[in-house]
């Protein structure tokens, strides 16, 4: 029998009057998976997260974590989820250990084991040296680490992190990435939102792309990339400016299977997008050679998550046009 998903939403919808913030969202996540939640501002990511953590009620549909309904059992959900919002929420005049002690006590962690748990969480988050510092005096990166320690305190199976890498320096970003992978390896299920897509593509194994409250793509990262990559980007390195001009002319004669031709004469390069397969491209290359155009390189550019996201966003914008 298949294991029940840790996180599951069924036709999850949230409307504010006439405005639909979230439109029939269906996603599911297994234990140990990291979901990269991608979308432009106002796409519905935060609305989804708020429903999942019990801070907002859906208008329609349902959301559950380990089989427990997020709307009707908000208290239980709070124990199952560690939520790190994009705002740190510091208390003045409190040291890091006291800050974590408060949240530990609020989650009902026994006093005897609380100190040990605080030290463990600080250790996991790489923040042990900050224990006696005042929270308000911490840098952004340090606060992010303390926030991670905070959400780990009650040992929840699900962690939801809103922009965890935002504002971090490169070293801290790499460390944050390693930390999240370590947590997933421990069996925690993570939802991570970020606008730094190359960063996200290196940690998440499942991706959900949203625009205008609708889920545009969902699934394992490699499958999404294949699904979205219906258009290929080809780049040619040519030997002179004349070759670039001649190639541009030749491409125009090929018909509508080539578009988005972008020449860069000073660099001697030219890019275009196409739906053609390898066989058709080899014919094109032969034509270029026959026309005495000196082609030094002819290669397909690898698309990353950012390109895939831009493709989805563009498609949505085009479909929205009257």
């Amino acid at each position, binding site marked *: 029998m298949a294991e029940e998903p840790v996180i599951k939403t069924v036709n999850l919808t949230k409307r504010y009057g006439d405005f639909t913030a979230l439109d029939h969202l269906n996603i599911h996540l297994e234990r140990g998976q990291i979901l990269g939640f991608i979308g432009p501002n106002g796409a519905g990511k935060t609305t989804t997260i708020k429903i999942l953590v019990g801070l907002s009620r859906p208008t329609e549909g349902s959301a559950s974590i380990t089989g427990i309904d997020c*709307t009707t059992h908000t208290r239980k959900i*709070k124990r199952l*989820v560690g939520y790190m919002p994009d705002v740190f929420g510091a208390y*003045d005049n409190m040291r890091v250990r006291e800050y974590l002690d408060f949240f530990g*006590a609020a*989650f009902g962690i026994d006093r005897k084991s609380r100190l040990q748990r605080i030290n463990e969480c600080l250790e996991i988050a790489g923040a042990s040296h900050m224990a006696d510092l005042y929270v*308000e*005096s911490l840098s952004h990166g340090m606060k992010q680490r303390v926030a991670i320690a905070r959400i780990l305190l009650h040992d929840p199976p699900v962690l939801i992190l809103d922009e965890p890498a935002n504002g971090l320096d490169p070293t801290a970003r790499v460390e944050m990435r390693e930390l999240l992978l370590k947590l997933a390896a421990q069996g925690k299920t993570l939802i991570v939102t970020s606008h730094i897509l190359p960063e996200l593509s290196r940690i998440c194994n499942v991706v959900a792309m949203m625009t205008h409250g609708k889920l545009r793509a969902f699934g394992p990262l490699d499958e999404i990339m294949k699904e979205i990559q219906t258009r290929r980007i080809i780049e040619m390195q040519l030997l002179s400016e004349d070759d670039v001009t001649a190639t541009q002319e030749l491409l125009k004669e090929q018909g509508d299977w080539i578009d988005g031709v972008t020449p860069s004469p000073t660099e001697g390069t030219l890019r275009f997008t196409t739906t053609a397969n390898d066989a058709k491209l080899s014919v094109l290359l032969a034509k270029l050679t026959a026309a005495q155009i000196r082609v030094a390189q002819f290669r397909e550019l690898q698309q990353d998550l950012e390109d895939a996201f831009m493709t989805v966003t563009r498609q949505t914008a085009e479909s929205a046009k009257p």
Partner: protein
Amino acid sequence: MSNPIITRECVGQLRKPAALWMQILWMLALAAMVILRWPHSNRVDLSGDQAREVLAIFGWTLLAGFMVIVPAFPAASVVTEKRSGTLALLLNSPLSPWQIFIGKFVGSIGFPLLLLAISLPEAVACYVMGGVSIIHQIIPVYLLLLVVAIEATAVGLYISTRCQSVDAALRLTYAIIFAIFVVTLIPAKFVPQSAPPAVGHILRIIASISPIPVLQGLIATGRVSGKAADIQHFLVTAALVIVICSGLTMRRLGQRIFDRPRDSGKITDERSSQVRAYRRFMYLWFFDPQRREKLTGRFANPVMVKEFRASRFGRSSWMARLVGICLVLSMGLMLATAYGSMQASGHLMGGLMVVLQIAIIVLITPSLAAGLISSEIQNGSWRLLQMTPLSAVSIVTGKLLAVIRTLLLLLLATMPGYLVQLLISPQQSHRIFQVLITLLLTTMLCVVGTTAISSMCRKTASATAIAYALILALFGGTLLVWLGRGSLFSPGAVSMALRLNPLAAALGVMHMPGFAHLNVIQWNWGFMVALIILSLIVLTARTSQLTKAR
């Protein structure tokens, strides 16, 4: 030359709906006073007494209103920008510290001056009633209020550059303004007749730091020359305060404001054995601000413990200082009580004890409780509280207990004065018991009421200003009615107004001169209990709404 900060500050303030409501309420309150005393019959008051009474109430209301309203704007001004990060942008612009200061100064004082302008028709009405001099009374009163506003703004702006949070800035500014305007008057009231003339002279100079004697003189005599020395002293000290605070503020608005090292997280437990022993001895261990706090106890409300730790006055080191100040004040009054009993003025001393205690409650509570919920909403930590399994009742209880415990500790420090009174005349036990119940209910009312206001506001500065305005309206506003007794207000109206005032009720119990025949204590208790229940309902409902999923 145009200053963009002035435009931004003034437009920003006037754009808020609250600003419009404040102007309307202010205008209605002042107009009501004049309408109440406007001659209704065809008789003309040739003596001008009515107009002078109206001017007196009008002047005191303006001064009290300014004491409450003016400090809130400058105190929040710089620190809010500092916390939101926009101050760094301002300092990074080509604007000089002088321009930033002027922008902030004019922006902060603009709205209070608008309120002053709104009051002009009422002042003209006083003049039209006859018997009030426009040159010797109305214009000097307005000039005095202008100086008061400038002084409070200069102090508030400087404090705002020094503090790290809006709550702390508001608390400290109100405390300093209260000290300048009110506390300076106290020593002169207790000069023994046997004291050397030089001491009396110095204390009178200290008293002239406050604008209150000047206003009193202008309203009572209507002669500026009669109080020339007082006015001169006041103007000189006010000018000094304005110049010093403005200079320091401009100095801070250079690079100094961000020139602050990061806390090194020193803890006594991890220092050398000599330092540890020294600090434990000097701070009696418990009061060491660098000692490592114990974990929250099993049965303790975590929100209450968090509130103690997050508030500076919740820390034992600061609490000890506050309790110490209260003890000194109480002992001073105790001495005065003993001294007063020999001169048959025990009632006066008992009354002063009550005034001291209610002043502590009224002045400290809004600064402690106004940020309980609003500051959490403002800095985003409310969402973290929402994510814990704590119920709304548990959050409210923790927050209320934190403030109530602090206030009760402070009140307990002032209790020895009553013990001396009991020793002198044991038959007063029933009265003292009634006063203690009144103090307890007053504490509850101020704490619960302010927290309820805090739950309705999104900004601590607004919550603090509203709480101070309402509490001072209850405690001070009703006393203004008492000031106009016999002439401006009928005995029935005065009695009704004083029923609402716990201070007046307690002073009646203590047979304080002026309140000796007032017997409204039980009515007042009923009123306070009703308000406490109402505030609790509002607070619980609002907190419950804030914690639930929407």
